[in-house]
């Protein structure tokens, strides 16, 4: 009985013309169609592979023979107990640290220099981005040649100075340094330009008034420039972290003829390279999928930590500002 009232509205709605109905649907649904391409593509090349990789990681799965038996989390357990996996994690972080820290410091210095009143500004700015234009493969080939143990330019120069040649491709630390050099060569200029953009946005009158108050160039840099570009700097750190955890091309091609990717003793085998080796040389797709998921979780954790840190820094900044404002107000009251 009570449904009668509800039914009464139906004929009224159907009295709308087709044109009106189309108009209504348009308003209601077309926004979803507009955003659909991104989500369809993301689902296709992002979400589905992620989920499928997880399914693969729960199986014994040979690259060529295909899926075997369902073994639950055995692949994860095996990898977490595998010294070669932890070796790759340690290499990843050590290469990341010895590349990211000098890279960001140099990027900051270069950006500060470019921020000055130079002649031929565009030329200098273009120059620092040049290494980024060169493909990583070419970079790796050139650096691999430079760092050759017996015939490389670097060792030739060292020997010319009467020093012992360095075993760039046999010893762990020299190898990692050489790879960090490649990464830095490519990314320093790129980060410098992003930091430069942030520096350009700092109002010039702050610098002027600081100069009038007697602040030197160094003081202005540390007390005005760095605090002002902090959000951009955090962005650069986060992108450098994510990139640093996924280093692949440089160690893969540093010693391209090596029988093991990432050095014959795996001395600079990063986790992504270890994953690739597991999948395509050792043919264990299940374990490779498990490694991919562990790496994914590590990156998520680091991303969250980064996010929390940057939020704290941002809120700390606003707290300081308000304190400063309070101080400004004090003498008046």
């Amino acid at each position, binding site marked *: 009985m009570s449904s009668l009232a509800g039914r009464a509205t139906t004929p009224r709605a159907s009295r709308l013309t087709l044109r009106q109905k189309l108009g209504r649907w348009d308003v209601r649904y077309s926004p979803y169609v507009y955003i659909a391409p991104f989500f*369809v593509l993301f689902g296709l090349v992002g979400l589905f592979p992620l989920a499928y990789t997880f399914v693969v990681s729960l199986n014994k799965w040979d690259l060529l023979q295909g899926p075997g038996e369902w073994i639950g989390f055995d692949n994860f357990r095996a990898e977490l107990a595998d010294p070669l996996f932890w070796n790759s994690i340690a290499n990843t972080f050590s290469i990341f640290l010895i590349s990211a820290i000098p890279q960001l410091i140099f990027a900051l210095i270069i950006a500060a220099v470019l921020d000055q009143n130079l002649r031929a500004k565009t030329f200098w700015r273009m120059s620092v981005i040049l290494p980024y234009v060169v493909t990583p493969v070419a970079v790796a080939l050139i650096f691999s040649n430079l760092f*050759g143990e017996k*015939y490389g330019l670097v060792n030739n120069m060292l020997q010319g100075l009467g020093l012992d040649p360095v075993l760039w491709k046999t010893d762990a630390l020299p190898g990692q340094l050489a790879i960090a050099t490649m990464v830095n060569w490519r990314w320093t200029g790129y980060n410098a330009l992003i930091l430069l953009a942030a520096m350009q946005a700092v109002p010039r009158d702050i610098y002027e008034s600081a100069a009038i108050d007697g602040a030197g160039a160094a003081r202005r840099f540390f007390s005005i420039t760095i605090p002002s570009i902090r959000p951009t700097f955090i962005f650069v750190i986060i992108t450098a972290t994510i990139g640093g955890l996924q280093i692949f091309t440089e160690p893969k091609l540093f010693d391209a003829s090596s029988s093991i990717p990432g050095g014959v003793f795996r001395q600079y085998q990063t986790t992504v390279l270890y994953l690739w080796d597991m999948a395509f040389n050792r043919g264990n797709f299940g374990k490779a999928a498990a490694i991919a998921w562990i790496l994914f979780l590590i990156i998520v954790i680091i991303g969250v930590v980064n996010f929390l840190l940057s939020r704290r820094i941002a809120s700390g900044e606003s707290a300081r500002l308000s304190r400063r404002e309070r101080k400004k107000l004090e003498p008046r009251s």
Partner: protein
Amino acid sequence: MIFSRGTKATAAIAAAAALAMVATGCSQSPAADDNGPITLTITTFGTMGLDGLYAQYEKDHPNITIKATNIDTGGNALTDWKTKQAAGNGLPDIQAVEEGWLGQVMGVSDSFVDLRDFGANDIKDRWVPWKLGQATDPKGRIIGYGTDIGPEGLCYNSKLFEAAGLPGDRAGVASLLGGPSATWDKFFEVGKQYHAATGKAWYDQSGFVWNAMVNEQAEGYYTKSGDLNVKDNATLKGLWMQLADAAKSGLSSNQSQWDWGGGKAFTDGSFATFVCPGWMLGVVKGQVEAAGGDNTSGWDFADVFPGGAANWGGSFLTVPTTSKHQKAAAELAAWLTDVPQEVAAFQAAGTFPSVAAAQSDAGVTGPSDLTKFFNDAPVGQILGSRANGVVAQFKGPDDSIIQEQVFGPSVKEIDSGTDGETAWNDALKLLDQLVVNK
């Protein structure tokens, strides 16, 4: 307003439709007809010497276009094949397969066409029997046509030999190392003499020597029945200790394999001997020339090999079942491995024919660019003599992993001065990690 919204909706629908077309478009393909105009794709690697032959085949078969891809190294080609094999998509009509991959290929031999369906039985007597045996899967299906084999002889630098007071001519070198009964003991002993006289290394690095030592055994890393054969293998262990001792005595130049400083190590006297399967002759020539050397650099090729007859590498042409033109592909593969073509490939790249009639062909035994480079050594004849007594060794599924990842680090260790016992134990540890408990 209404007008503009209408266009937006149309655009959105069009975009969605376009996306749907992209998503489904790749599954369409023209019907296969081997008599109409067709394109055959072929993937090879390294220097196989086939590139010059395609044009001739296209000329003889006007309806066929050949699209060839050559991948720089065997290792990269293996990755390429495995990726496409695993994806079940993108494989060419003819896939070149290397001997070292056979363990993995035989695991999925069903995904290669049985060439007996396309006349393999009529031509199978072409090949030396062991080569045909390698290409036959456990069910008796023939899945590959042999291109080359890799009988190993010894490359040596006659100038360096003479400077050290050793004989420089081919016959003299062969008999110095023991002729037909040459042993590794003798090889290392002469190496120590050379090292004492010159202070220089005898061979480039230990990896290729170890490879040769393993390859010339009746059973290598696996037994004939497919069981792992490394731990407690006294023969391999004995050879390993011999090799480690040689490296410790300064006989290894500790070069990086496949790099050799852009070939410079071949011209600056870093080492005097080099392990040379047929296809390696083209590599040596290329390396020497890359470093600015030529036939006056002193490299020669002797009819002797320590430890007896050995084979390293050699390839096959296969037809994956995903091919839409299996018959045409099989015909092309058969043509490419026929006598005149194998002779031409040998002349181009030094790949020694696996077809018996081609081995004795005047084009192989006679002079060529290669013989000119190696001080007029009759390389074809020498390789033919080196091929005598070669037996095919069973290659297990993880053979290349054991070769590269288990023994690779240990080879580098002994070249850098670690003692043989430690390096052997390190290899066994890696064997447990990478192969036994995988």
